[in-house]
């Protein structure tokens, strides 16, 4: 089985939000944003925009009939800035016109006078100024202060860790269509249809049952459309209801990059203590999260940073400071890994620093400290069925870790102008929403009288293949071909109170719910079949669309059974609801169980640095990944490879450059560079653990969306390794991403560039 949308995709026939034929009278919205990053609005003049022929509406803060502030965690963000602008391009006005071009032209005519206020873009500065979005929290296990003296090595360092643009190929967009009786139907490119529904209803001041949000698919999400798709859906809905015309907002690339939040940049301090045997005895880390101007999802992102601060390593003494710092950037938001990567990076940097000091390879330290069954994390969860060492050992074996170091060293001995480096990245990632209540999935399964089946769940199809997984689960449950099953759009009128498609948990939660729904229908079908065939319901099974009795083929087909069941007035549709057992998490307590299970893996990355030019190639990436029992191999493989690519991009090319006055300088794809086919290695190997069923996942599977992202972290340290082979160094601050600029400036002392004395010049 393949991704169920593949054939539509390759023929260009799959419909995204604005590909659907426009409804009669569709209007188009464009947003006018703040020209500066922080200040008090003194005067706003939209008259010139309003005067343009073809402009149908101009909307500002005061036009919001209901709740004016939005936000998934706390409602601290005005839908339109009205008093104070908090970041560059902060939306102030929505212009609605006959065409998108006209709306944009009108938006340019809006004039705003702003009294500038000081701008902060650095979280350390915000922290020092006390500008935090929530109380600063400290998490402790053991007592780090008591063990520094016992350590043979204690090392400290500072990190400046970059953010990352989502660069979903499809930018944010929404289309709102007014319906009778004050209702509105919204087609939104969102990962959170219910959050959208709830917020639209609140903004409009109407009950949620008057808002229907429908999502067929997204052209990529990666977290960027978890919370931040809501804004545009709310704006489109506001205008649609006010004007009683359908309204569509499609951000262009520059608008999307400037107006929406990113992966959170962090500043970090670490202190690590080790014995001379390589055992990590203590780890003290401070995470200063660059949260942006409003809360958005910063608190839960920071929480996951804390939970993953020790990644795959058993450390007896841990101290973690976590501060969500307000800066004058768009509110930073969810992004694949959701704070986990930032937590893991700091520890990898600490290990690399320690290895340099100790004169050992980092993997020597890594391997010695891997977690095992029975290990209790700093938040209280005790590891069961831990496969960390297993993935490491299988990778060690398959990719010959023992020879990598020798091979790389031999190369570096014999090559002056190019150097190789490698790094190994173990990953242990917890699966579940840490907001425990979000761990619920719903599914609605319909069998029609012709035997075709449709399934609707809370899962959003954003390329990750959740629709395909749902189809596979239904097909296997009923013993029919996947061709007989269709996955519907995600719609708030079919499924209520949908959790966002996030936390890698979409397939787990909705898949298990789908299994439950299928079981409910199947039990009725088996009764009918048993009556028909003269056996017991428990002896009935269906394979390849044919009913079997005690494993023997019968003449009864799936289609006949369905029809007989219908005429017997047996239920052919069911709703399944699933929530994983035993989860609880309260950050003030130490005996938590936030995760249903963990996903594990180990990755080896090798690179070559061109020491003349400072650029580099990623030569290979080789992964052993724990997937449980995969549902659809090509879909799972795509998640692992794609996650890796984004992770490599995060630490290498993807450079969000901000000016001191809070403007994003790399606001287009001409300046913001994500990996392309040439950059990604051809030598990319992914092996899945075999015989690794996961009792917690549907059909024995494990969540796969986020964990592979963190393999990419290895690319940073592999490049650093190669740099150190050319010019050993201990940087004052560990700074990401590792762009060719950073590499070249590490390879040479800038002061070595000596312009000739004027006398020498002719």
């Amino acid at each position, binding site marked *: 089985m393949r991704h169920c949308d593949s054939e539509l995709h390759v023929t*260009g026939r799959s419909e995204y939000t604005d*590909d659907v034929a426009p409804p009669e009278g569709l209007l188009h919205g464009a947003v006018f944003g703040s020209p500066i990053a922080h200040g008090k609005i003194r005067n706003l003049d939209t008259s010139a925009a309003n005067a343009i022929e073809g402009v149908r509406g101009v909307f500002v803060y005061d036009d919001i009939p209901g709740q004016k502030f939005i936000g998934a965690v706390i409602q601290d963000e005005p839908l339109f800035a009205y008093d104070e602008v908090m970041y560059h391009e902060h939306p102030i006005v929505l212009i609605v016109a006959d065409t998108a071009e006209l709306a944009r032209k009108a938006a340019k005519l809006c004039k705003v006078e702003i009294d500038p206020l000081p701008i902060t873009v650095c979280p350390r500065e915000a922290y020092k100024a006390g500008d935090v979005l929530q109380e600063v929290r400290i998490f402790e296990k053991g007592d780090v202060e008591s063990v520094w003296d016992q350590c043979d090595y204690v090392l400290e360092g500072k990190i400046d860790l970059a953010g990352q643009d989502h660069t979903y190929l499809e930018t944010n967009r929404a289309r709102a269509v007014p319906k009778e009786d004050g209702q509105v139907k919204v087609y939104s490119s969102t990962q959170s249809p219910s959050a959208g529904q709830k917020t639209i209803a609140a903004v409009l001041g109407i009950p949620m049952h008057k808002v229907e949000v429908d999502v067929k698919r997204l052209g990529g999400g990666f977290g960027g459309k978890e919370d931040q798709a809501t804004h545009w859906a709310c704006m489109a809905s506001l205008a649609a209801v006010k004007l009683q015309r359908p309204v569509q907002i499609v951000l262009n690339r520059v608008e999307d990059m400037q107006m929406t939040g990113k992966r959170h940049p962090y500043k970090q301090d670490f202190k690590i203590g080790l014995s001379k045997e390589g055992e990590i005895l203590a780890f003290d880390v401070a995470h200063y999260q660059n949260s942006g101007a409003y809360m958005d999802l910063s608190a839960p992102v920071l929480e996951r940073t804390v939970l993953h601060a020790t990644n795959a390593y058993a450390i007896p003494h841990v101290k973690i400071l976590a501060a969500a710092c307000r800066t004058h950037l768009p509110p930073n938001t969810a992004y694949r890994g959701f704070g986990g990567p930032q937590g893991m990076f700091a520890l990898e940097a600490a290990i690399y620093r320690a290895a340099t000091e100790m004169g050992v390879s980092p993997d020597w330290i890594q391997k010695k400290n891997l977690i095992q069954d029975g290990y209790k994390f700093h938040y209280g969860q005790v590891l069961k069925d831990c496969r960390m060492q297993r993935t490491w050992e299988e990778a060690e074996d398959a990719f010959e870790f023992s020879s990598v170091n020798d091979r790389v060293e031999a190369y570096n001995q014999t090559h002056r102008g190019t150097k190789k480096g490698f790094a190994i990245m173990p990953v242990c990632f917890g699966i579940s929403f840490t907001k425990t209540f979000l761990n619920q999935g719903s599914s609605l399964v319909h069998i029609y009288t012709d035997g075709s089946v449709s399934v609707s769940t809370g899962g959003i199809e954003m390329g990750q293949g959740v629709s395909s997984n749902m189809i596979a689960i239904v097909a296997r449950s009923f013993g029919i071909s996947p061709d007989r099953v269709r996955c519907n759009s995600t719609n708030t009128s079919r499924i209520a109170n949908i959790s966002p498609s996030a936390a890698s948990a979409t397939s787990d939660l909705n898949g298990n719910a789908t299994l439950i729904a299928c079981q409910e229908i199947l039990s009725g079908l088996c009764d009918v079949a048993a009556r028909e065939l003269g056996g017991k319901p428990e002896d009935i099974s269906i394979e390849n669309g044919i009913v079997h009795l005690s494993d023997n083929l019968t003449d009864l087909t799936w289609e006949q059974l369905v029809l007989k069941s219908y005429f017997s007035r047996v239920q052919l549709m069911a709703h399944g609801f699933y929530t994983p057992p035993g989860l609880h998490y309260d950050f003030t307590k130490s005996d938590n169980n936030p995760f249903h299970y963990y996903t594990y893996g180990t990755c080896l990355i090798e690179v070559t640095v061109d020491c*003349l030019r400072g650029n580099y190639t990623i030569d290979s990436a080789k992964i052993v990944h724990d997937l449980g029992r995969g549902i659809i191999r090509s879909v799972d493989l*795509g998640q692992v*490879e794609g996650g890796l690519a984004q992770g490599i991009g995060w630490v290498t090319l993807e450079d969000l450059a901000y000016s001191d006055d809070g403007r994003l300088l790399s606001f*287009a794809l001409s300046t913001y560079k994500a990996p392309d086919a040439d950059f990604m290695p*051809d030598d990319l190997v992914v092996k899945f653990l075999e015989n690794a069923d996961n009792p917690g996942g549907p059909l024995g599977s494990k969540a796969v969306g986020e964990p592979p992202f963190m393999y990419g972290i290895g690319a940073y340290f592999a490049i650093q390794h190669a740099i150190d082979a050319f010019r050993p160094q201990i940087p004052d601050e560990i700074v990401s991403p590792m762009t060719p600029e950073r590499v070249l400036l590490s390879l040479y002392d800038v002061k*070595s560039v000596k312009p000739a004395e004027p006398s*020498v*010049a002719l």
Partner: protein
Amino acid sequence: MNLKSPIRFILNDQEVTAWETPGRLVLDYLRDSERLTGTKEGCKEGDCGACTVLLGSLDKGRVRYVPMTSCLIPMGELMGKHLVSIEGLNMEMLSPVQAALVDCGGTQCGYCTPGFVVSMTGWLMDETQALDAGGVKIAISGNLCRCTGYRSIKEAGEQVLDKLASGLSGENRITDLCQKEALPAYFETIPERLAALEHPENSDFNIEGGRPLVIAGGTDIYVQRGAEIPETPVQLLNSGDAVPPVVEADGNLIVDARMSFQAFGDDPLIQEAIPEIQAYNYLIASWPIRTRATLGGNICNASPIADMTCLLLALDAQLSVEGGDEPRHLALKDFFLGYKQLAKIEEEVIKTIEFGKPDGSTRIHWEKVSKRPVLDIATVNSAARFEVDGSFIKEAHLALGGVAAIPLYLHETCQFLSNQSLTAELVMEAVAIAQTEFQPISDVRGSADYKRLLARQLLLALFLKCFPEVISEEVVYEAL
């Protein structure tokens, strides 16, 4: 002012006359006017390839197709052409390219996928493209995918090769592909239909109301001024007949300024003169951009980091310029007066670019470093042309980009090196002199310190490449 003109062309399998402003983008036309929504907008500046289409032109009775990003094609250029969107490649069954992408898991969210299908199909249709793994990468060099990590897409390309390559040995790949059901059969009818396509009567675009905006490839001007161009009178340099190939006269190579980077790299005279031109082209721009970007446009855009301009500066190219009081000639190195300031009046257009044909004693090299090696704009580039007699430099021409307000010809360094016997010491001295000729500024592409350092490195790289027998890597690293 009504700028709309009738534009007659073939859209997929249908002759159409579109009443459009010649500056309108083909992407907007396809999506909004024709409701052909398989073509996606991802960035609208040629950096993602989600809107890639094929444009076919009649050439000696055959139609040659090139991939282009439709976000950079003005409608006026469609006149008399065959425009192919993803919808025009669909058949009853999936094509081998489509089937391979499905089979290899090369599509996830699907938004970029039509662009990949179009590029890969265009690659199979083009006889000049190598059908091997390297060719696959060239084919998709202009397409970004954020979901897959590309391995599955590369695998799909190789699967297509396994299936088709042996059958594409014929002279006419399009016929072969139609026979193998890799292209819809209507493609075989296109040459005749294009030849029969009558041009509308008033096919000159309406440019009343002032001087029109001159657009060559449009790859930069659409990025800078995309919103206003559809409503601006335009003069499209490449809307008419095909650009002639490079010619040789009096020991010079003469290039039509409208020539695309791709055509320049494919030209046999250029390949003879600059053997590594295709390798440079791979780094200069992606395939769908190379088919649009022109040499003259690259020069007139006057970007300090213009890749092709850097090479042409080092070739000591001469320009012929027309449109003023009388045609005139000037050296490219005298063409740049300041940031985006050119030694020409507005009405003047570059007609040809010429440079001395290299011979056995010529050494040429070009270098570039950008954040991402491919499909990116240079941070710094460098180029050199040396006329040598053994290790004696008779004449040196060096250029640097990204370090000054203009694409920089290193006058003093060139003078210093000319008529000298090359030694490692001389190289280090030349590099130090070069550093006195520019003052880089910090911007989004890099800090001033970095650019200064990188400029040194890329100058050294030129010498290492051109004079391996005189200056070795060892010597350079010892000296640094």
